[in-house]
């Protein structure tokens, strides 16, 4: 039997890696990838906890919804990134700073 903590630690690792990708990568698509990693970490948590929730299936249901939501947001995000590329000819977030104080 794998203890909950195992799952949690793995999810923490994945989450932080995703976080690092979000913060450090100089490529917008990679930022999206990082977000996907973070969402996956959360899903891992949900399913890990969901094992104990047979009555409501809350964890697994939430995990499923999360996957769908993540997919949709990736779709929209990619569309917008493509849009940005059309205007800026780059997807490096550091070069996209028309709007600032």
């Amino acid at each position, binding site marked *: 039997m794998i203890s909950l903590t195992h799952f949690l630690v793995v999810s923490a690792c994945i989450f932080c890696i995703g*976080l690092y990708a979000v913060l450090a990568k100089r490529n917008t698509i990679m930022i999206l990838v990082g977000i996907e990693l973070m969402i996956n970490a959360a899903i891992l948590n949900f399913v890990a906890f969901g094992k104990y929730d047979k009555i409501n299936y809350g964890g697994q249901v939430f995990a499923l919804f999360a996957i769908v939501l993540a997919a949709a947001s990736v779709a929209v995000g990619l569309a917008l990134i493509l849009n940005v590329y059309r205007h800026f000819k780059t997807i490096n977030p*550091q070069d*996209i*700073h028309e709007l*600032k*104080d």
Partner: protein
Amino acid sequence: MLLPISPIIASILVMLFPLVASVLQAMLGKKAISGNMALIAILGSTIISLFGVFLPVWNSTSLQQKWEWFTIGDHTLHVGILVNNLTALMQLVVCVIALPVHIYSRAYMKGDSGIHRYWMYLSLFCFAMLGLTVSLNLLQLYIFWELVGFASYLLIGFWFTKETAAQANKKAFLINRIGDLGFLIGIALVYAHCGTLDLATLFNQTGFFKDIDIGLISSIDKNATWVTFAGLAFFLGAMAKSAQFPLHVWLPDAMEGPTSVSSLIHAATMVAAGVFLLCTVFPLFNETVLLIIVIIGTLTALSGALFALGQYDIKKVLAFSTISQLGFMMVGVGIGAWDAAMFHLTTHAFFKCLLFLCAGALIHEMTHWKAKAQLDFDPKDLRHMGGLRRFMPKTFICMVIASLSLAGFPSTSGYLSKDSIVITAYEWASHLGGAYVLIPILLIIISILTAFYIGRLILKVFFGSFKYRSHIKTIKFHEAPKAMLIPMVFLAAASLFPLFGLSLADYHSSWIMQTLDANTIYPTQAQAHLFIPALLTGGAILGWLVGWSWYVKKKYPLSENNRLVHFANKQGYLNEFNESIFVKGTLELSRILYIFDQYMVDGITKFFSWFVRGLSAAVYWFDKYIVDGLVNSFAQATYYIGHLVRHVQNGQLQGYLGFALTIVILGILYLIIT
């Protein structure tokens, strides 16, 4: 009852006539240049004052009437009229002085472009001064008190295009303001402790001033600190108005006004208001305050006399003389002989007014002559005059009478009143003993000095020879016109003793002294009545002789040549030498003191005004850069923080994320650790 109206109504009428005249003239503006209105008003006032107020009231009855003015809290203030010996006398004096001055002014001010203002101001002044005399309420008194100051301001600055006049009236008003503050503080203290400002309630001035211990004031501990302060505050008020040292600096400058104004306001009436005030609130003073009054009075008298010695401007001599005489009156109040002070006030009003009017006549003629002769000199300067008695004999006679009166020559009114002060001072001093004796001694010296400087003036102006003799043949020098001479003659007559009493020498028998008669606690000393007048008269004559030899015979001791001649001619060399050293020393002292006065006392005034200006500039700097600067820098700091906040907003997406998440992790760490 000489007039079918009560003295209260009469005294109100006396006040109102000039007010109506003033308002009418203000409304008419330039159309009212004749001064008839003012003249009629003051004539009416004089008549009513004499027959309707003075005669019924004097030595017989005392009346008061009050009307509710307004209520503050539980206290109701009244306005009212108080007619008693003191106020009726004062009112009459003002009227009687004002009338000749009005007549005189018609000639003197003729042709001035601002004459309509002159009459308006003059009437305003008369109203204020007459109102001041009969006020029942201290606050009411204060109002008139300031109003006379205001009228004086207007009149000093009558020729406002003259820079010096504009400066002088400002100075006069400001220095008077200092005194006014004192007065106001005094009022406030009295109000705070007695709850009323009604003179009748305070001092119970129903009849004579003798019963000073009947009113509300009797229930007060006279040695309380506040009484001292209140007394000093009132005295401060009187000091400024009556030009007491060191607040006298405004008076010589005030001579920038027309001479007729100087005679009325700055010699006879307004400046005496301080003395009048002190007499009115006399019961309030305790020993300490009275002593201070004496000291200041003596100091003023001395300094005034000394300064008068060295002046060349005829009006300034008279101005310092006024200061000196006011000092005498103050001493009179201070020693408790306020009756003597009032007496001197009355006599002084006549002869000093006359002196000024004569001086005015001289200046008037000098100016005219100067204009005709197309010369350029200061018509007020003594050094340009001389030998004028031949051209203006009537003026000469009038002026001599006034001068004798000032010098305290027997048979003049001045002799009586001055003696009364000096003798009483002597009695007072001998009663107290010790260093107090210094006061009468000083007073005697001052009297002699007075005789000397007024003699100097007369001699310089009327004797000797006219400086511009060469011109005199082509252009005639006139006697003063009739309109000016009549008032002068009238005043000259009033400067002689008969007006005040039948006795030539005994001031006690004069009617003013008999009626007012302050209760003095010290015994009279018969011998003083003898030797002091003798001393004074003798001194005066001596002074004139010296003056004669110096100014008429041109044996001026300071001139190198003449002194050698003296040295050769006189046997009593030592005597002469001593005298010249003494006299010269006095003169030198006078000069030095005048310089001191100009540069120190007046300098202090100037320094003070400079200091206040500097302070105000500094305060403004502080306000602009520190107070406001603080506000502005606070605003700027807010702005700058706003700027700092914007640093986060650098447009970098990952920067934003990093910022937000850093805060989150810091928050988590903080919360976990605590």
